[in-house]
């Protein structure tokens, strides 16, 4: 499998990017972090729009930058597709002209993706003769994605492509991005500060903090670590679980999701039985009880769990994070007092009560 290896050291008056990256070039690789952490700068370095004086960039065996050997290939000569935050369509060309702009400029032998294919996947047949200024934001962004795809890139870089869109348009474009991966087999580097998008899309995640790569790995692994509190806002800390829609309970309006450790009940989802669904269980929504309750509880999701690891105890902070195993990792945030009362220790058998399951409601409803 081909790898993306990159290393950049670049100083701005108020910012220092010092990032090393070595990830399998496969699927959607998300770069996540708060505003100002250098996500866009890292992406621009990968593209060659910024030239880091100390830097290297390799995709498989193709070297696009190696400052030690004074190698720097300009963006126009790299087989990279770039989708910017704003669509940046050319106003003097029609939609068709925009789509064909890059397509005309690559050799016929490297055209792996056809015009008809892109137009069909993105659902833009009816827009071809229009001027970009007459399109909605979501339509424009789809054209921008199509335009990049038509250069048959070996790597697609996307810089918060949904951030300029409202909820409605996001829902319109997101499925297309999901489709890109399966339809065109192009590795995608996807920058976002929206965790819902990343949970939805990514296979690999890179967490950036103040210009440095703080964490990198498969998304389920990264999100099941205990030490992420500094990197992820409190209301986003929580394990990801890949599930399959198992059953629809019409009577109570619930959907039953199966995962490696059992079942989860969630409010009804418009999903077909058998469909894959990745959910996030926020640590703050999980509570721990030492033995199964002898009384009835209103919490639907009660799972057997084993304590794996107890997070750092900070005297100034009333809470502590616990890593559990329920057939897959699960994070729980409890008070230090509860930790003492339950006398939790690794290996202990407990039960986890899950109060809510986050399902990226922004995107799905």
């Amino acid at each position, binding site marked *: 499998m081909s790898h993306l290896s990159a290393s950049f050291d670049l100083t701005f008056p108020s910012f220092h990017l010092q990032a090393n990256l070595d990830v399998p070039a496969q699927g959607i690789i998300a770069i996540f972090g708060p505003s100002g952490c250098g996500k866009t700068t890292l992406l621009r370095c990968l*593209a060659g*729009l910024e030239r880091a004086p100390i830097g290297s960039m390799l995709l498989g065996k193709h070297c696009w930058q190696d400052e030690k050997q004074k190698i720097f290939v*300009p*963006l*126009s*000569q790299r087989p*990279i*597709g*770039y989708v*910017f935050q*704003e*669509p*940046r*369509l*050319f*106003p*003097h060309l029609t939609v068709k002209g925009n789509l064909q*702009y*890059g397509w005309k*400029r*690559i050799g016929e032998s490297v055209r792996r993706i056809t015009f008809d294919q892109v137009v069909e996947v993105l659902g833009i047949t009816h827009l071809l003769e229009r001027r*970009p*200024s007459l399109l909605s934001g979501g339509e*424009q962004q789809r054209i921008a994605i199509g*335009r*990049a795809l038509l*250069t048959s890139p070996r790597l697609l870089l996307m810089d918060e492509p949904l951030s300029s869109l409202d909820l409605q348009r996001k829902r319109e474009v997101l499925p297309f991005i999901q489709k890109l991966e399966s339809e065109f087999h192009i590795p995608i580097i996807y920058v976002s500060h929206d965790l819902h998008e990343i949970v939805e899309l990514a296979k690999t995640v890179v967490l950036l903090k103040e210009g440095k790569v703080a964490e990198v790995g498969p998304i389920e692994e990264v999100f099941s670590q205990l030490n992420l509190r500094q990197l992820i806002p409190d209301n986003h800390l929580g394990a990801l679980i890949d599930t399959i829609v198992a059953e629809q309970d019409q009577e109570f309006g619930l959907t039953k999701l199966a995962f490696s450790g059992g079942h989860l009940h969630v409010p009804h989802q418009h999903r077909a039985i058998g469909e894959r669904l990745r959910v996030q269980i926020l640590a703050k929504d999980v509570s721990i009880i030492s033995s199964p309750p002898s009384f009835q509880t209103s919490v639907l999701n009660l799972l057997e769990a084993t304590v794996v690891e107890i997070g750092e105890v900070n005297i100034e902070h009333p809470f502590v994070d616990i890593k559990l195993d329920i057939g897959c990792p699960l994070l729980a945030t409890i008070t230090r007092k509860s930790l003492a009362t339950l006398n939790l220790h690794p290996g202990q058998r407990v039960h986890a009560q899950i109060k809510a399951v986050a399902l990226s409601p922004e995107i799905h409803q």
Partner: protein
Amino acid sequence: MIGIVELGPLWLTLQLASATVVVLLILGTPIAWWLAFTSSRLRTIVEAIVALPIVLPPTVLGFYLLIALGPHGFLGGPWKDLTGSALSFSFSGLVIASTFYSLPFVVQPLHGAFEAIGRKPLEAAWALRASKLDTFLSVASPMAIRGYLTAIVLGFAHTLGEFGVVLMVGGNIPGQTKVLSIAIYDHVEVLEYAQAHTLSAGLLLFSFIVLLGVYTANRRFPLHAT
């Protein structure tokens, strides 16, 4: 009121303005491009130099140009060695002088147009495999079409209207350097008001029609950067 006039100066003026505009587009485009996209500290200095002809009295510009274009000047000297003829009091000298004189009227609209386009569409074009020159030809210049239109018209019209510089550098040689504005002056000097009227009204009407054309065309190209 209408007097019979010789058309020589009119023809010469149109030739001069056309030649000047062509030279200015070739010179002005890279200057304007550099001004729009450089981060060099020299930018402000170059901007000020380009704007000088707007504020300088034409006689000051004309005086320095006369010296520079003269047989011992830094432009006129090499020119004479090369061609055997002097630059001052010649049509070529007039084109050079007009180029300096009308420079800001071409550079500034182009500069504004390039700046309005910004880096974003250029980066988008590079990401679509367009080289820098290709990007300029296929993205930047069509997007700057209004800037070019304005630059051409202002450069042309401003060259039509020059007087001081032309008089000092070109003298008043019929068929070579006697342009319209000088012809009008000559007619007035000898009290041929009818002829002066014809030429003045013609120039006025022409200028008005040209400007009207520009503003109409500007409305026709509603280019919105996205």
